[in-house]
């Protein structure tokens, strides 16, 4: 009887220790896999923004979006941060494509020479 009670107590202590460790890890944000994903998405957006900027194709709001995504990530608002990062990435990609499509000067046909 006593042996059983000791084993039960030990098991309970072990479970409590594991539970509190998990809680602690969660409260520090280190274990949430989304944080890493968002950080990667922000880095991708920043790279796309820089690439667009290298050909003078950066759009007005891209840098602001990345900044907002960083703030949202710091506040633990992963969904918001991911949405902003993805949008900024898309803007960077499109800005680069737009600038590349405009490399050649084309005079509109309504100007008659």
């Amino acid at each position, binding site marked *: 009887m006593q042996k059983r009670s000791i084993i039960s107590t030990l098991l309970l202590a072990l479970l409590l220790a594991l539970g509190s460790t998990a809680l602690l890890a969660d409260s520090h944000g280190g274990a949430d896999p989304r944080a890493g994903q968002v950080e990667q998405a922000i880095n991708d957006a920043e790279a796309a923004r820089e690439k667009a*900027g290298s050909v*003078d*194709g*950066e*759009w*007005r*709001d*891209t*840098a602001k979006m990345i900044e907002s995504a960083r703030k949202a990530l710091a506040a633990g608002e992963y969904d918001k941060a991911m949405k902003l990062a993805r949008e900024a990435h898309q*803007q960077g990609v*499109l800005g680069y494509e*737009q*600038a590349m*499509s*405009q490399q*050649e*000067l*084309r*005079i*509109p*046909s*309504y*100007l*008659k*020479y």
Partner: protein
Amino acid sequence: MKKILLTCAALILTAGFGTATASTPEEDKAAWDRFYQQRFPNVPEEDYNNGVYTIDKVGRENWEAIEEFPPYEPFIDAGREMWETPFANGKGYRDCFPNGPAIAGNYPHWDKETGMVMTLPLAVNNCLEANGEKPLKYKKGPINNILSYIAFESRGQVVNVEIPGDDPRALEAYEEGKKFYFTRRGQLNFSCAHCHLQTVGMVLRTETLGPAKGHPTHFPVYRSKWGTVGTLHRRFTGCNKQVRAKPFKAQGKEYRNLEYFLTHKSNGLELNGPGARK
């Protein structure tokens, strides 16, 4: 409203674009003049220096009422004081600009020595720095006072931007300005030409799109939106932001070359700055 936007979008999407053509600045100017002459056959050539009020009758009435008590007057007075106040070394603006203050008609011009387009605001700051003074900011603030005074004193001078043939870099700068003008940019995918050539005279929200010809003659301008006087490059910045593109640096190479190209298209028009706009 929806109809207007749809029409604009359709025009922009369906507009034909020719291929790159090597045209001289004179041929460009003639093509622009022809375009505006056909678009607005009743507008006298010399009236284009009034910007959008050349073609917006109601706007013109309001503007003429505003001009009875010009909101830019205090800026001219402040600029006159700047012009007459010596620098710390005892020299002044008149030492840099002996023919001043009526010198706006000399700008922008190609500066062979530095190999770049020289604009009036840049020349003002060069003067300040050469005399140990702090340069002025290029978009807002006191630079607009001195520019307003110079513009006012230069009224009546005729725009005559030259692209000198003895320095190929001048034509290069002009071509870069032209390329900028026709380049789509920003999230809205607009070029300068979309608003001020192709859809000129149409209405975007409440604003009539003004002709490019005559745009630079009346700067700096007092804009009611700004509540103060601002420079041409501040306006370029605003245009780029409106199409949701990241703007370039005021007095950087991009905007200086754009000013060179754009002002060439106003050759023959009288300077009438500072102006007043919505």
